[in-house]
């Protein structure tokens, strides 16, 4: 008995490691052998999983409704892009005003650049969050939206650093399936651990009743602030991965519609569910691409249908409205799918079957 109880967790860890190694080997192989379009969509899925989890940490688990995610993505994307671009390319891109000194001559590897993106967006997240989280509900929403808009306007105007409205071109395409899904898995693991810790429970307590949580000894400021900063960091690294996937960024990419897309993923999946977020981020990303068909002219049964620009977002807005009006908790609510639950579900199914037979 004693040997079994030691062996079991070791076996479990080994199984998880083996599964991870296999998964990454598959991704690494797939990056070369799968269809380039499919790889690109899968990359986007991984990135959006991470960013949506970040938004959900703040909006869903902590109940602090923030609309600033696009701003943090912009910070991360610009940081990573500026650090990974080759000096010669920078010289060519910054033809209006040259890039300021230390940035114009350095080129970092992708990993340190992403770490730096996490640090910078975390710092910006703290600077935004510390004053903003004093507000509640709609006021927090409008303040964070305001901050995101300020970040965008600043990025449009500090030409010697960001190249202004022209944006950056020729960012090295470092992001591949291992990077994007690796980061998604790290975020999933962080969130899963976090939600089982006392910190995570404190966040949920804040969501359910701030005053009661404070009375129980939860430090509102530090908890909310940390959730906000973590969320900003996930968005920042996600933005960095996104920039190095699509290789061009400009300030107008990071407007409110981007926040809306991420928010929609979180709401559809259920604010407060990790598995819901993952499923919904993948579904929405794939649907975004699939529904491009609506915007392109095509012939169906001999009927020439003109493409309707903007139709995609109409479909998504309607989906969001239906979910919020009829299934306000999204399709997962705050429940999770886990192995234990699946096992319990399976045993219950077996038991009902046997009892029926008997």
């Amino acid at each position, binding site marked *: 008995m004693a040997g079994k109880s030691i062996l079991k967790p070791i076996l479990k860890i080994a199984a998880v490691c083996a599964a991870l190694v296999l998964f990454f080997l598959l991704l690494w192989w797939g990056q070369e052998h799968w269809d380039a379009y499919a790889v690109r969509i899968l990359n986007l899925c991984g990135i959006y999983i991470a960013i949506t989890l970040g938004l959900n940490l703040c909006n869903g688990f902590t109940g602090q409704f923030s609309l600033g995610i696009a701003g943090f993505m912009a910070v991360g994307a610009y940081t990573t892009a500026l650090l990974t671009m080759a000096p010669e390319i920078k010289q060519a891109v910054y033809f209006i005003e040259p890039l300021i000194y230390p940035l114009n001559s350095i080129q970092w590897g992708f990993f340190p650049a992403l770490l730096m993106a996490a640090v910078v967006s975390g710092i910006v997240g703290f600077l935004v969050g510390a004053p903003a989280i004093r507000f509640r509900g*709609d006021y927090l929403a409008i303040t964070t939206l305001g901050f995101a808009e*300020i970040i965008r306007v600043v990025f449009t105007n500090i030409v010697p650093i960001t190249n202004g409205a022209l944006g950056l071109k020729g960012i090295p395409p470092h992001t591949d399936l291992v990077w994007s899904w690796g980061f998604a898995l790290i975020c999933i693991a962080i969130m899963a651990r976090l939600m089982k810790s006392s910190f995570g429970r404190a966040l949920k307590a804040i969501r359910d009743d701030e005053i009661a949580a404070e009375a129980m000894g939860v430090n509102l400021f530090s908890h909310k602030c940390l959730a906000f900063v973590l969320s900003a960091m996930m968005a920042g690294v996600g933005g960095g991965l996104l920039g190095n996937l699509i290789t061009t960024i400009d300030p107008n990419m990071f407007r409110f519609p981007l926040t809306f897309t991420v928010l929609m993923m979180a709401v559809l999946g259920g604010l407060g569910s990790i598995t819901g977020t993952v499923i919904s981020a993948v579904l929405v990303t794939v649907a975004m691409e699939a529904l491009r068909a609506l915007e392109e002219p095509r012939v169906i049964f001999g009927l020439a249908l003109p493409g309707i620009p903007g*139709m995609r977002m109409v479909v998504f807005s309607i989906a969001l409205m239906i979910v919020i*009006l009829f299934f306000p908790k999204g399709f997962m609510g705050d429940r999770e799918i886990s192995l234990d639950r699946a096992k319990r579900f399976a045993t219950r199914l077996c038991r009902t079957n046997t009892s029926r037979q008997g």
Partner: protein
Amino acid sequence: MTVEILLQNIANGITLGSLYALLAIGYTMVYGILGLINFAHGEIFMVSTYFAFYGTAVFALPWQVAFVLAIVLTALLGVVIERAAYRPLRDAPRISVLISAIGVSFLMANLGLVIFGGRPKTFYRPPIFQTPIELGGVKVVALFFVIPLLTAILLVILNYIVYRTKTGLAMRAAQWDFDTARLMGVDVDRAISITFAIGSALAAVGGIMWGLRFAEINPNMGLFPGLKCFIAAVFGGIGNISGAVLGGFILGFGEIMLVALLPGLAGYRDAFAFIVLILILLVRPTGLLGDKQRVKI
């Protein structure tokens, strides 16, 4: 800066301030009664300009008829939005209603893109508003007088409705407390519908005058003026109509003057409103004319 340019900027500031004020009233009235940022208000404003555009340019109605029709249709649109997207969520958590409002806003902006097309349209401007008037050596078009004047008249009418009529009393009672108002025989749903109708009608007036002033309309024009006007409403003290007007004027004037006096910062014009908002909320969360609010446990 010469005196003429300064006077011209003041005229610009007053006009933009009037437009912001008209929009801000809609935000403040809805927030006062429902406690909700009506994200869709900016899109209501956008759609109103298209109603007027289609009336004049496509159906070739006389502009007086087209504009009145546009205002009525927009008021109806506001009522329909409230009924479809906000009323079913009356007892839901506030965040759900906020998400619903964001959803409506997005739906309308994108439907606008699908139906009206993404290319900006030229708004019909009746020549009567373009008559030049000379005043103290400065030449301005009549529109610069029409906009503030019309705003003032509408404010007087609004004040009369809210403070002198039974409907206004019902609206103010509902703003205070739904349940108590119901016990006093107030039809709360009707009061809310009327609030949306009035707010949307004012947004339509603002939208039409926006079209007369700037001549170009597009489906994305709603979001940012909308957000700025919400900020104006917060600035003045949310829920307070005179506050919204004051906030609208300060914001409109401030934006014009920022660009006029500090041209180097002109690129930051769109951030100005948000910076003002954050500063105000930090220093005086209830706005200039707002009441102190306490959270009851």
